[in-house]
């Protein structure tokens, strides 16, 4: 079953327990930083009088996984988008392409890797909730199956229409994500990207890439055809020599006798 998180901005008290628990769980060095980095995979930020979490959204069709040339990033059936640092060669295309600007890099290391939330993939596989969800004292981060979480979010919005915006952030954004958010403050004011397309960006490149085999065949035959015709023209011209206007060119290697 595909698991995920539901973050309820109206419940978050900004204590930062999730960020600390994440550091501990994933053995990340240093203190919790202000913004997410390769060493801080989730943060809590105060915006417009509300608190919002920043973390990987774990897209259903992840852009990062689609662009990675060595398939170091991939979506697991349990929901997390995981990263294999042993494969990564550091092209940083995932950082460039991610619609949520999630992957971060170890700029200070001679042998750097990417860092991002992996939705506690190991724990989730064992059936346990993520460390951040377990640590949350206010039930602001809820762990569950994506389908259940959507049901729960809809229920909260329905039961308290004045208390929420009628929108589940992540239900359709960039083709849908495993981490979703509900709030009473507009999402763009919380610093979340708006106007994201409802279809995964990965489809746009696949439209081009999937045509390559056809293209190679047609273009290859065309080019050979051009060569065949133009070369044949030379053969014909040699068999039936005609006086050519380009006089000085022709008698280069044949002396007139």
């Amino acid at each position: 079953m595909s698991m995920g998180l539901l973050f309820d901005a109206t419940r978050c008290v900004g204590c930062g327990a999730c960020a600390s628990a994440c550091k501990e769980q994933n053995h990340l060095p240093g203190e919790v930083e202000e913004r997410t980095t390769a060493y801080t995979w989730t943060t809590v930020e105060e915006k417009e009088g509300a608190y919002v979490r920043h973390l990987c959204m774990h897209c259903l069709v992840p852009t990062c996984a689609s662009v990675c040339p060595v398939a170091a990033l991939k979506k697991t059936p349990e929901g997390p988008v995981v990263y294999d640092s042993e494969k990564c060669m550091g092209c940083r295309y995932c950082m460039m392409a991610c619609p949520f600007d999630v992957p971060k890099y170890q700029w200070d290391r001679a042998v750097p890797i990417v860092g991002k939330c992996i939705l506690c993939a190991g724990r989730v596989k064992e059936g346990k909730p993520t460390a951040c969800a377990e640590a949350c004292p206010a039930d602001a981060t809820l762990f569950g199956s994506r389908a259940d979480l959507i049901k729960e979010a809809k229920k909260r919005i329905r039961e308290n229409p004045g208390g929420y915006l009628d929108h589940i952030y992540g239900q359709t954004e960039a083709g849908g994500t495993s981490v979703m958010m509900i709030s009473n403050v507009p999402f763009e004011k919380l610093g979340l990207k708006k106007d994201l397309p409802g279809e995964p960006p990965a489809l746009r490149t696949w439209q081009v890439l999937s045509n390559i085999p056809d293209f190679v065949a047609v273009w290859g035959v065309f080019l050979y055809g051009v060569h065949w015709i133009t070369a044949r023209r030379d053969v014909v011209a040699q068999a039936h020599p005609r006086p050519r206007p380009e006089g000085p060119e022709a008698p280069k290697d044949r002396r007139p006798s």
Partner: protein
Amino acid sequence: MSTAATQPARRPWPGFWTALFAVLFIAFCVVTVIRFTKGLGAVTNLSDRFPWGLWIGFDLLCGVGLAAGAFTLTAVVHLFNLRKFEPIVRPAILTGFLGYIFVIMALMFDLGQPWRIWHALIYWNPHSVMFEVAWCVMLYTTVLTMEFAPVVLERFGFHAPSRIIHGLITPLVIAGVLLSTLHQSSLGSLYLIVPTKLHPLWYSQLLPLFFYISAIGAGIGMVILESYMSKRAFGRHLEMELLEPLARAMVVALGIYGLLRLQTIARNHAFGDIGALTYEGKMFLLEFALGVVIPVVLLSFQKLRTNASWLVTGAFSAVLGFVVNRLNVSVTGMERAAGIRYIPSLMEIIVSVGLVGLGMAVFALTVRYFPIFEPHPEPEPADPEGA
């Protein structure tokens, strides 16, 4: 042989350039050491908000693009059979080859763990444009090496392997054109994935086509520039009868490209940015003036096209505009979404300039010691006279 004799006399101030090159080389070595001991953050202005900078925008995108003269001219000579262009094929192939070596060396700096570059061979992800780029770089560099190999082989008297390559030239050239078409366009496809980040003056589903056509235009521009530079360096005459028709082809390529760009901007409703002269609007105007308007207008006139200095001006403008375009796509167009301005650090510039300098030095040396510009003898056994 005659070139070697004229060489020392034509240099007015040899000490200056040698000194400059030496200083640059030392700086380049220092930056290299810092890069590989302290990491990318110590030498670049790259950050989590701006992960791709000068080394991708200039070294990779422009290095590959300006190497496009190689596949264009090999196609013209070997596939379209326009044999009169034969004398400028070798310099074009040499530029292409050095351009790709330049790109690979730049990647050695830009990749976080360049010693893993071979991972693309074993860990496949056909959904990734970068995967396609990696394979095109590898395969096309191989093709260029084989296309250039006869020059080296013949110089040292290995005629048999050279003859084998000559026999394989048609499939080799076709492979080269195919790979180049894929590679040039795939560099544009890299940016298809960022519809919400790249500014509407540059984002389009047609990016792969734009990158392809503009590379053909600028690649031809590079061929013209090289002929001019080698003329200056070696006191050769400019083959105007060859460069003039090439300039015409460049006008057509850039003209089509310019029209398509304008249509796309209209469709993206982005003309407002140009009218309002925003930062992006100004950068677009610079790019479009240099890369399309000036070369197309200048070289549309036969009088200017057949005049060496105007021809070179037009070609130079096209190449400059091409570079600005690639930097606009990779830097200018991405800055608004990133929320920060990216300006390359001095050390990033030193690496790029150092690599360009290295490439030019190797080009100059190769031209001096190998038969690149001299008329080279056709391999006689291929066409016996008895026919």
